[in-house]
C-alpha cells in the first residue's frame, strides 16, 4: 500500500507539487494522468524515494520514505520495479546484463539460475533471443520491454511505469499496454502508470487520477473520468486546448 499525504515539492521558485494526497491499495492498478510538465515524473520519483521532500509524507507499507537515508531506502526499493520514460538501460551492458543486474547484485543465485530468470523475464516481455544485443541496437519499443524485464525480474510487489507508451506508434503502444496488463495479472503486482495517453489510461486503469496545478484534481473510474462534465477534465480527455489560456 502506498499513501501520499500533502506532498509538496519545489524547484527554486517553481512549485511543482502543491499538496498531493492519495492512497493506492495493494494489488490495485492506478493511472495518473496530467499535462506534460505538470509533475507526473516528479511525483512518481517520490513514490520510490528517488526524490524526497521536506513537506508532506510518502508511506510505503506504513514506512515513511522521507525519514530514511539512502541505504535504508535501498531496502524498501526491493519492493519496487520502475520503468523509466526513456527506459534508462545501462548502455555499457548487454540486454542480458541489464536484465540480470539486480539479481547479480543480490548475489544469492548461481549464474545458471540467473540466466534462467533472465530468459523467463525476456519471454514475458516477448523478446526472446536478444540477450547479447546492446541497448543501442534496439528500437524504442524493444528498449521499453527490456526496461520492463529488468524491473520485474526480481519479482517486485509494486511496478511503476513512467509514460510507457509515449513516443511509440499505436500498434507498439497497444502491445505495451497488453504487456502491462499481463504483468499485473500474472505477477499480482500493484501497478502505478503515469501517462498522458488516454487510450492506454482507459485500458489499464481500474482507477484514474488527474494531476493538475500540483494537486490531484479528480479521482475516479475510467468511465467516470471519460464522462466527466468538468471543463478541465473534459478538455484533457478529448484533447481540446483552451483558447483563453497560453500554451507553450
Amino acid at each position, binding site marked *: 500500500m502506498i499513501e501520499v499525504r500533502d506532498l509538496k515539492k519545489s524547484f527554486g521558485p517553481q512549485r511543482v507539487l502543491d499538496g498531493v494526497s492519495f492512497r493506492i491499495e495493494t494489488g490495485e492498478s492506478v493511472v495518473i494522468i496530467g499535462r506534460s510538465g505538470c509533475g507526473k515524473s516528479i511525483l512518481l520519483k517520490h513514490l520510490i524515494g528517488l526524490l524526497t521532500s521536506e513537506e508532506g509524507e510518502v508511506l510505503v507499507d506504513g514506512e515513511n520514505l522521507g525519514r530514511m537515508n539512502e541505504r535504508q531506502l*535501498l531496502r524498501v*526499493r526491493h519492493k519496487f520495479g520502475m520503468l*523509466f520514460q526513456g527506459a*534508462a*538501460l545501462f548502455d555499457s551492458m548487454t540486454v542480458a546484463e541489464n536484465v540480470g543486474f539486480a539479481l547479480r547484485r*543480490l548475489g544469492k543465485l548461481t549464474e545458471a539460475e540467473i540466466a534462467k530468470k533472465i530468459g523467463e523475464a525476456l519471454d514475458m516481455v516477448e523478446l526472446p533471443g536478444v540477450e547479447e544485443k546492446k541497448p543501442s541496437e534496439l528500437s524504442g519499443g524493444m528498449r521499453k520491454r527490456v526496461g520492463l524485464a529488468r524491473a520485474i525480474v526480481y519479482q517486485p510487489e509494486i511496478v511503476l511505469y513512467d509514460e510507457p507508451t509515449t513516443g511509440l506508434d499505436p500498434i507498439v503502444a497497444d502491445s505495451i499496454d497488453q504487456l502491462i496488463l499481463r504483468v499485473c495479472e500474472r505477477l499480482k503486482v500493484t501497478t502505478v502508470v503515469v501517462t498522458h495517453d488516454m487510450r492506454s489510461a482507459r485500458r489499464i486503469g481500474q482507477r484514474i487520477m488527474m494531476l493538475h496545478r500540483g494537486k490531484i484534481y479528480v479521482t475516479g473510474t475510467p468511465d467516470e473520468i471519460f464522462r466527466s462534465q468538468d471543463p478541465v477534465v473534459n478538455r484533457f480527455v478529448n484533447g481540446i486546448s483552451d483558447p483563453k489560456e497560453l500554451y507553450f
Partner: protein
Amino acid sequence: MNFFSNKWIAEWLQGLGRITLLCQEAVHSLFTRKITWRDLIYQLHFIGVKSQSVVLITGAFTGMVLCAQTYFQFHKVRMDTATLAVVSVSMASELGPVLTALMVAGRVGAAMAAELGTMKVTEQIDALRTLATHPVDYLVVPRLLSAIIAVPLLNAEAIALGIGAGYVLGVSLLGIDPTYLWQNMLKYTVATDVMIGVIKSFIFGGIVAVIGCYKGMSCGEGAEGVGRATTEAVVYSSITILISNFFLTISLGELLSYL
C-alpha cells in the same frame, strides 16, 4: 558585489560539503561492502594500463629537460656531477607526483565525469538506485580504489623513467662522468624525498577520482551539463592538486623530519 560574493562563497562551501559527504560515504562503503572485483579490475586497466604511454612520455621528457637545464647552470660553477641529484630529488618529491596526477586528471578525471554525467542525464543513475544499488558502491568505490592503487604506480614509473632519461642524456650528450653522476644522485636523494612523493601520489589519485565522480554525479541537464562537468572536473582537480601539493610539501617535510 557583496551579494554575488556571498552567493559564490555559499555555493563553494556547499560543494565542499557535498564532496566531504561523498568521501565519507565512499570510505564507509569501502570498508563495509563487498568489492566487485570485475569492476575494480576493469577500472585498474582503464586508469593504470591505458594511462601509461601518456605518463611515461611526460616523465621521460620532464626528466631530460630538467637534466639539461640543471646542467647548463651547474656547468658554470663546475658542479656537473650534481646534476642528476637535482633531477632525482625534484622528480621524486615534486614533478613526478604532480605531473602524473595532472596527466591522469586530464585523461581519467575527465572520462569519469563524462561517463557518470551521461549516466546521470539519461537517468541511468536513478535506474541503479531503483535496482537497490547505491551509486557510491557501484560507481565511485571501484574508481576511487583503482585511482589510489594506479596513480602511485604510474608515479613510480614516471620518476624512474625521468631519472633514467636524465642519466642517459647527461652521460651520452652532455658528457658528464657517469660514476660520479650516479653516486651523487644516490648520496643526495634521501628516503624522505621518495616518501613525500609516494604519499602525495596516493592523495592525488584520490583527489582525481573523487572530483571526477562528484562532478559527474552532480552533473547538470543535457549535453551542456555533461560538457561542463567534464571541464570542471579537470580544472578543479588540477587546481586542487597544485594547491594541495604546496601544503603537502611544507607539512610532509616537517612531519617526516620528526620520524
